[in-house]
């Protein structure tokens, strides 16, 4: 881990400086996390009147539960679609803006703001647009001979939540790619152009490799986004339906814990999710540390 070559010498001061953050982290993160671990070994009725210790039963049930395995699968499909789509579209728009001289600022401004839209609001907007009885898109699709119904068709429902989640995330990726493209020396592209390389070839031989750190970073960040921050999109739209086809892991934790009141199972799911996030954090960290060092 990095530090300064030169440091201050003080025994007490750093603890004071750290105290507020550590306190908040301990009370609202580490303690609840420990509670989740404890709860995951218990069985309790809804009102919390009777509690019994069941060892690993919650976990074994979980991994034998077809719904949970389905939820894992749904999460993978969903996260991969959102990540790939939003990164690809972000890159596409960034490349286009990179060609602009006069209008790049304007385009950037117009493309940036969805970052500020709450995922829940994004969900509601798309829900309205795709409403099977009222929506504009189903109306158009029906004219084209496709009977859109996300209340029944798992595929339609998945497309809907992927679209709403991606929509909100494109601007974020776009900004990173714009910055990444600006950091690439123009001379490289010009040299290649003089050698007769066309734009497509230049993209794949120069631009894309040089963007790969940005792309990797965005892949991880978007995966985390798709797996966890999209909760409001699901909650405000499909609520995991139909037939659990959009019930992603983080939504299932909530449904089983708060609606199903199956606290043991929900806690076990929390623990599994925490392990996944921590693994992703470590991967990201390794990568960032490496970058800062060279």
């Amino acid at each position, binding site marked *: 881990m990095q530090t300064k070559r030169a440091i201050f010498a003080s025994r007490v001061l750093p603890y004071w400086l750290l105290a507020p953050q550590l306190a908040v982290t301990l009370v609202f993160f580490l303690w609840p996390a420990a509670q989740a671990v404890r709860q995951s070994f218990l069985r309790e009725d809804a009102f*919390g009147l009777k509690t019994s210790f069941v060892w690993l039963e919650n976990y074994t049930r979980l991994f034998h539960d077809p719904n949970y395995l389905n939820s894992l699968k749904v999460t993978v499909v969903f996260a991969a679609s959102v990540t790939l789509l939003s990164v690809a579209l972000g890159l596409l728009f960034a490349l286009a803006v990179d060609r602009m001289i006069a209008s790049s600022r304007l385009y950037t401004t117009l493309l940036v703001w969805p970052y500020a839209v709450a995922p829940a609001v994004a969900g509601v907007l798309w829900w309205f647009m795709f409403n099977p009885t009222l929506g504009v898109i189903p109306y158009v699709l029906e004219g084209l001979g496709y009977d859109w119904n996300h209340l029944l068709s798992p595929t339609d429902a998945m497309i809907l939540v992927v679209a709403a989640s991606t929509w909100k995330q494109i601007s974020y990726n776009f900004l990173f790619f714009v910055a990444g493209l600006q950091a690439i020396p123009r001379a490289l592209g010009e040299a290649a152009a003089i050698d007769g390389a066309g734009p497509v070839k230049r993209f794949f031989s120069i631009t894309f490799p040089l963007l790969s750190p940005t792309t990797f970073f965005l892949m991880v960040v978007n995966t985390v986004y798709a797996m966890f921050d999209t909760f409001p999109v699901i909650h405000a739209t499909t609520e995991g339906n139909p037939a*659990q086809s959009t019930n992603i892991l983080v939504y299932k934790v909530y449904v089983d814990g708060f609606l199903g009141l199956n606290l043991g199972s929900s806690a076990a799911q929390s623990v599994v999710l925490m392990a996944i996030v921590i693994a992703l954090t470590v991967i990201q960290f390794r990568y960032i540390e490496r970058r800062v060092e060279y």
Partner: protein
Amino acid sequence: MSTIVNWIGGAATMAAATLLSSAAFAATEIQWWHAMGGELGAKLEEIVAGYNASQDEYKVVPVYKGTYPETMTAAITAFRAGEQPAIVQVFEVGTGTMMAARGAVYPVYQLMKDAGADFDQKAFLPAVVGYYTDTDGNMLSMPFNSSTPILYYNKDVFEKAGLDPEKAPETWSDVEEFSKKIIDSGAAKCGFTTGWISWVQLENLSAWHNQSIGTLENGFGGLDTELTFDGPVQERHWENLKKWQDSGVFEYGGPVGGNDAAPKFYSQECAIYMNSSASRAGVMANAKGFEVGFGMLPYYADVDGAPQNSIIGGATLWVLKGREEAEYKGVAEFFSYLSSPEVQADWHQFSGYLPITEAAYELGKEQGYYAKNPGTDVGIKQITLNPPTANSKGLRFGNYVQIRNIIDEEFQALLSGQKTAREALQSLDQRGNELIREFQAANS
């Protein structure tokens, strides 16, 4: 920084306080969490305002907590956190869960006795109260809004299709035949739609045909019960629904309450609509440009014993333990107010919920309400059509809120062609039984 935060917090709290409480200081506040949105919510607030104005010792504060499942789980979570309301409105399928929670629930008969309130259980309609009594016949919760599904139809569309607009379909073969005529004549795009697949097209379907849905008298007999949804009538009906969905006779309105069903009926896309008798207020308000007819739920004429009687839905008011003693006196007084014939008749006539006392029903008759408003007594006639059997007095399963979700999921799997009716119902039984076993383990 902290001053800024304090200032923001303080100012906002004050703003909130001035906005929300206009009552006198002395009144004891009683929180009532409910799930009545829209027009019903406005009426509920009116009733509460009426009670609050009638005395100044107590102030009932109604708080809308979202859908039924949300309201119930919010109250349970709040109970665990020690922040529970005194009164919570719980829908009928949460009854099993609430009944098992002896440490958390203050039974209504007990509450009324402790408060010395004038309370006669016999005044209530047996078909309604039966759902909410313990094995000794004591009333555990206060019925407030009970309903039963009925059939609504579009008279104008019927006429256009060459059908008799005064004749509601009686059997499922009527529904099918009428629908085909309606579609073929171009009078409407779809025959029928429905709210609440679980409640209307499975639970009530079963009771209406005197079919069991669980062992031990549909769960009334104990936590040992097992689901038996995969009977021949249910299978036949779900198979038909799938077939009708494919041919356009039926259109699915979505899971849980079926939010998209009502718009299909209002916009005259579907000619027939099955939903709660309490949907009447919404139907009358939204059915612009056409006449609405009413009827009982359809049945299969060749099934022995059909039609039997339908079962109720809607919700009752449960009292949660752990509040101040003074509040419970107020709750008892408020419940007496709620079940008085005038308030009941008003609420019933406005909302389409069933009257919960004989007196309220009689009052309505005296006022000539049912004669003036056709269709308003369909529900009550249907629920009292025959004396309830073990299969038709209701159901009582633990974790039933989740089982309802499974019903929706399996129905969706059926409609999207992933499963046959038989497979869907069997899988429903199997998954539901797991939840019931879990509930049994956690509660014994």
